[in-house]
Structure formats: C-alpha cells, structure tokens
C-alpha cells in the first residue's frame, strides 16, 4: 500500500518532469509567462495599497494582514499551477477525445490528467508570493515561533491542495458541458478570487458559498486567520488540511463519475 503510493508519487514526478522538459522547448514562452504572472499579481497588490490609502482597515483587518492573505493565495495558486495545471486541460482533453491514450496506460487517469501540464507561470507566482509573505510576516503583529512557522507551512500546502481539488472539480464540468473551453471552471476561479479579502465583508450568501459550497476561502482567508490567530475564523482555518482532503476527494470522485460518461470522439 505504502510502496504503491510511493510509486504513484514517483511516477507523478516523472510525468511532471517530462512536461517541464517539453515546456522548456519554448523558452521565450517561459519568460513571458513568468513575467506576466508577476505583473498580474503585482497589480493586485497595488490595488490593495490604493484601497488602504483611503481606509485604515477592512472589518478589523490591517493592510499587512490583508497582504498576508493575498500572499497566501499567490503562493497556493503558484503551487497548484506548478504541480497540477493539467486540470485546466480537461476541457480540451475530453472534448477532442485525447483522454483515450490516458485510459490505455496503467496509471490512474486522474493523476495523468493533473500531471499533463506544468504552469511555468507558477514560478513567477512563487517568487512574488514568497516575497510578499516575507514582507507581510515582518509587519504583522504576531510572535513567531517554530510551531507557528510549521503551522504556516502546513497550511500553505493544504491551501494548494484545496485549490487543486477545486480546479479538478470545476473542470470536470467538461464531461457534461462538452465544450472545449474551460469557461465554467474559469468563472468559478474568478469567483474564488473574492477570497483574497476577508470574507467577513461579504453578505451571507457569498460567505456560505466561499466556505462550504466551493470553499475557496480555505486557500487564503481561513488559513491566514489561523496563522495570525485573528478572530473566530482562526479555528476554521485549522481545518484547512481536512478541507483539502475533502476537495481532492470530491474532485476525484466527480472525475470518476465523468469518466463513465466519456464518449471519446468519432474517429
């Protein structure tokens, strides 16, 4: 069992490595992607800074605390596109019948899909996110010890797990919508961007959606609250690893369900 899991993980790394080599054939793309990733995220930070110029805090959250939430999103996002960007290729894979080849190889199809692409922009995200994280950590009013740092690292990884699970889940819409575009998943992803701010500022409906239905808030707001030990949300934040496992499980389950509907293509 353990040996099997280790083998599966080793193969996953092999597949990702192959994708990295394939992607690096297009070196110019790599630099453009990385640079644009940094730019997009940096624009967000400037936007934050502009908001906080006119108001000192949002619902009891200071500028640097919000930067920490923001940095968490950027890092989790970076991790998820680096190791599981393949979720975003599902629409094309499914609707052009390219899943056939994956179903004929002795390795779980869901792992083949997730490892079928590497988002090199993830590196840009990681660099910027880590920078932001360090800057925020130095400004927020929290005493850092080994335990808190370990918690922070665990929650960052779990946050990435939440995002990967949700990416898989929303992209599985391809099995039902039969369109080669990931429109549905992309709009859900954009909706999830709301969780870059303290979710307490939203109405009940949005809050429940971000917490329970599509728990995007667990890739940013809740883990940040847990690390900062800020407000009642911190207890929920400790559940991030559980939520991550849940999201990955539901993504995989829906994927398996989708596979039974897969129709390949006509030739």
């Amino acid at each position, binding site marked *: 069992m353990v040996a099997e899991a280790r*083998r599966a993980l080793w*193969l996953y790394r*092999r*597949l990702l490595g*192959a*994708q990295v*080599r*394939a*992607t690096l*054939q297009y070196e110019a793309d790599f630099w453009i992607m990385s640079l644009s990733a940094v730019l997009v995220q940096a624009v967000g930070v400037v936007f934050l800074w502009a908001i906080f110029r006119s108001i000192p805090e949002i619902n009891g959250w200071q500028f640097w605390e919000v930067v920490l939430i923001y940095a968490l999103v950027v890092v989790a996002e970076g991790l998820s596109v680096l190791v599981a960007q393949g979720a975003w290729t599902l629409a094309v894979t499914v609707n052009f*019948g390219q*899943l*056939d*080849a994956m*179903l*004929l*190889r*002795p*390795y*779980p*199809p869901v792992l083949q899909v997730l490892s079928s692409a590497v988002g090199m922009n993830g590196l840009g995200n990681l660099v910027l996110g880590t920078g932001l994280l360090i800057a925020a950590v130095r400004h927020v009013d929290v005493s850092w010890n080994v335990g808190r740092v370990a918690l922070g690292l665990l929650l960052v990884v779990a946050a990435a797990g939440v995002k990967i699970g949700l990416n898989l889940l929303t992209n599985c819409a391809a099995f039902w919508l*039969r369109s080669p575009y990931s429109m549905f998943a992309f709009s859900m992803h954009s909706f999830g961007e709301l969780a870059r701010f303290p979710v307490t500022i939203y109405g009940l409906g949005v809050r429940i959606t971000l917490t329970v239905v599509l728990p995007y808030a667990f890739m940013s707001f809740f883990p940040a609250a847990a690390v900062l030990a800020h407000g009642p949300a911190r207890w929920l934040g400790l559940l991030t690893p559980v939520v991550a496992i849940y999201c990955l499980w539901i993504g995989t389950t829906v994927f398996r369900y989708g596979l*039974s*509907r*897969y*129709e*390949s293509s006509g*030739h």
Partner: protein
Amino acid sequence: MEMVHARPVTLIQVAGLRKVFRKPEKAPGLRGSLRHLLQRRFSEHVAVDGIDLSVAQGEAVAYVGPNGAGKSTTVKMLSGILVPTAGQVLVDGLVPYRARVENARRVGVVFGQRTQLWWDLPVRDSLELLRDMHGLGAARYRETLARLDDVLGLADLLPVVARKLSLGQRMRADLAAALLHEPRIVYLDEPTIGLDIAVKDRVRSFVRRLVADGTTVMLTTHDLADIEDICRRIVIIDAGRVVYDGDLQSVKDTHVRERSMSFELAAGLPGVDRIAARLPGAQVRAGSDDRELTVTFDRMTLGAREVLAAVLAEAEIVDMHIDEPAIETVVRKVYAGQLRPEPDGGVDRETVS
C-alpha cells in the same frame, strides 16, 4: 495443478454489446446554438447494436466493415475507453472499464488515426515513461526495445519529438509504444492507414510475427491485403451488427474471386472482341481511350498469366496493373444479402446467386 483444456481458452467474451451515443440536436448558426441552450434536445445514435463475439487465445481476428459500422467503437469498449450502454464485456477475466489500470497492463492498443505518444516529447522519453508505468525492469526493457527496433526500425526515431514524425514513422513508434509491455492481447485499429507500401509491408510482417508468437490479435482495417496472411477468421459488421463471423478463406473463395487487370496499349484497338474470344468467361472492356483496356475475370478459372498472354497476342502492351479487390467489395456483397451468417456462426451459405 496442471489444467488440461479441452477447448482453447476464451480471452475475449462479448455478449449483447451495445453503444448508444447522444448527439445534440442543434440547428446551424448562433441562433441554433442559443436555442439548444434553452431546450436541450438530443437524438440517439446506435453505433454498436448487440454484438456477440468470442475470441480464443492466440486467435487473429479481422474486424471489418464499412465506414461508421461501429468497429472503432467496439474496440474502445473492449479496451476500456468507453463504458457500454448495455451488454457484457470480459477480457482476460476483467471488465475493462471497471479495471482500467489492470486491463491496460494486459492489452496493447493502436489507433492508426491518433497517436498515443506524448506529443511534445521525443519518442525515447515516451517509451521510457511507459516503461516506468508498466514497471518494466531495465534488462527486459532493453531486450524488448531491441526486438521492436529490429522489426520496426526505431533507432533513428528515438530522439525525434513525436509531433515532428511523419505518418509512417509515427505509426512505427506507436506500435512500439503499444507493445512495449508484451501484451497478450492486441487491438489494432487501422494500423496501416495512410502508409506507403514499404511501411505497410513492415507493419504487416510485424503483426504476422506477433500472431506467430501466440499473441491474440484483433485487426481492423479497410485493406484486404492487411488481413490476408494474418487472420484466419473474419468478423464483418455493418450498422453495429455482426453480419458474418467465420473463416476468411471461404469468404475469399466465394466473394473475392474477381480480379481485374488494366492495360495501357501502344496503339488503339479497333475492338475488344478478339481478345474476348481468347478469354471465355472474362469481361473485356475498352477504357475511355481506345488505348486502355480492362479485363475482369474469375481467379479460380483463369490465371493472370493467361490473361496477359491473350492480350499480348492481340496488342502491344505499354503498361499494366492488377487491382486487388478491397474488403469493401466483400462487405458490399454481404450487404447486398449474398451472404448470411449461419446461426451457429459456421460457414457461409449463398442465398442469392
């Protein structure tokens, strides 16, 4: 304990297999698409309509039929890609779509229409990834690869990125990828499509060798020559149903007796009667030009040599070629109702003469 088999082991067992596709019913244009969003209508399309099939270990079966007959759909259900709408599939004791990973270890599949290699990777990388997925040891991998290289000529393909391969090169690489783990069962769906004669020959002799080694092979093709020296059994399907299942030789003897030879002559012929007189039973026709000539004959009563001699006696030949009948000819005859499967799946019987 040693098992004694009275009959050969059945590897593929299919009963009442059906696949129905749902197609969106959409009027053309943007308006049609928007309308479809509101009132989603679908029409059902039966691609495979109740197929029964049983293939014994070591058998080589040709699976043929006209375009759209449901051949690829059957292969996709046998290999676990598609879940059947109804019916049972059992391949080597497994239900392919339930035990996909285990099934993938035992079977090899090639779709001539589409590659299974990693598009952006050199062929060598694809093969090595497959080696690791199948968990093949270094020694066994090297050995198998050397053997495949021997027949398929892979050496100069290995460093090439898959998307830069020509069609024939890609097919050879795809065959290697599908057979790397030495599967007991191999499905080949049009493995010679679009290949030139030389590569076709190579692929054919390769498949022949597979069969000789005891691999169970199911071969789909539109080229009768592909199956002639490979398969002893032929299954013909049309509109999703089996219309014939039996011995290839007897089908050929009854339905592929016609050959035709075309000639280009040095000078125009005043008429074909004199040649026709030399070849009783054959049909002799002039082409669009009076320097062209086609002779159609029954290969059981006349030989190509006799036809050639008859034409040579009357005219000077510049060029000639023999047309091999395509599998479509057989299928068309079957379709026209000239051949019916026996209830016991045995030998064919003429119903129309």
